[in-house]
């Protein structure tokens, strides 16, 4: 039998949290990727967000998890940029000493293989290629969006939070969320049109 908060709402069970994280992890990774444009950092951000959710916010109803998790993800992304700003000062100072090829050393060809796809793949290779190209263009367009517009768009439409939840996750007013979303949609439409992509 589920456990309850004092107001009668049931707490999220282990299974619900597990299922929620499994469902949301890839979208969270993509969100982080659009923002930071670095796979390792994006995975770190998702990992931090998951840990924060399970360590500090696990005593919440399952219905609150999406909004809470998105808020944590956004804050973790902002923290990443704050740390990066401090680090870049030192990087600039040390860049004169030259850079190594650490990135090349870390390259693992196995990691470039796509994970086994589990759904939504068309059988036709030509259609698959076209779909991948469109996805690539959309992802590039999302990366180019201003951060707040991208956040609002992804939270509202991809994470399917309502305006109030998105506002809470972003720490802004509902009006701002609507404005950011509207601007994001129009900016995306123009960018896709410029690339010759029609949906």
């Amino acid at each position, binding site marked *: 039998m589920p456990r309850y908060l004092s107001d009668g709402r049931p707490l999220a069970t282990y299974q619900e949290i597990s299922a929620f994280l499994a469902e949301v992890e890839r979208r969270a990774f993509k969100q982080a990727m659009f923002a930071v444009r670095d*796979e390792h950092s994006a995975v770190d951000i998702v990992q931090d967000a998951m840990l924060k959710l399970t360590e500090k916010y696990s005593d919440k109803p399952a219905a609150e998890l999406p909004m809470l998790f998105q808020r944590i993800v956004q804050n973790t992304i902002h923290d990443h940029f704050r740390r990066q700003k401090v680090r870049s000062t030192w990087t600039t100072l040390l860049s004169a000493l030259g850079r190594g090829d650490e990135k090349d050393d870390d390259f693992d060809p196995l990691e470039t293989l796509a994970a086994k796809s589990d759904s*939504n793949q068309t059988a036709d290779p030509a259609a698959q290629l076209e779909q991948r190209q469109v996805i690539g263009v959309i992802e590039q367009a999302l990366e180019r969006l201003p951060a707040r517009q991208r956040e609002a768009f992804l939270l509202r*439409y991809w994470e399917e939070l309502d305006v109030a939840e998105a506002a809470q996750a972003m720490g802004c007013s509902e009006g701002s969320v609507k404005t950011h979303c509207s601007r994001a949609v129009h900016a995306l439409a123009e960018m896709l049109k410029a690339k010759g992509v029609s949906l």
Partner: protein
Amino acid sequence: MSPDDIFANKITTYLDHGLPDLKAGTAYRLQLARAEALARLADPARATSAQAVTSAAVAGAGNGTGAMSGGRGMGGGRGWLWLGIALIVAAGFGYQQWQAYQQLTDIEETDAAILSSELPIDAYLDRGFQNWLKRASYEQE
């Protein structure tokens, strides 16, 4: 549904289609991250969730465990910090004590050497004796 919503839904459908195409390494790391996060769930008893409890008791227990788990996490971190600080302070204090003891030992040895010597202490204060000592040492060299 507004045209904006329709357009946005089309985009998110494409984004959904792109999700399975994550690199194997990335998907694996995400899976590991999830496993680690779940392992650290604040209240492991959630896993069973078979225990029936009254809402009031649960509210208290839930809040309590939440606070405890948070406290434990923070307490653990702070505990290590304080332990580190205590070790540094103890090491500093120990070094100071050891130095003071060494100084005392040196003074004791000097005093003992002076007192046990056949030469009277007043001789060290006598300028003539000091001049003779210097001369004697030059001559020896």
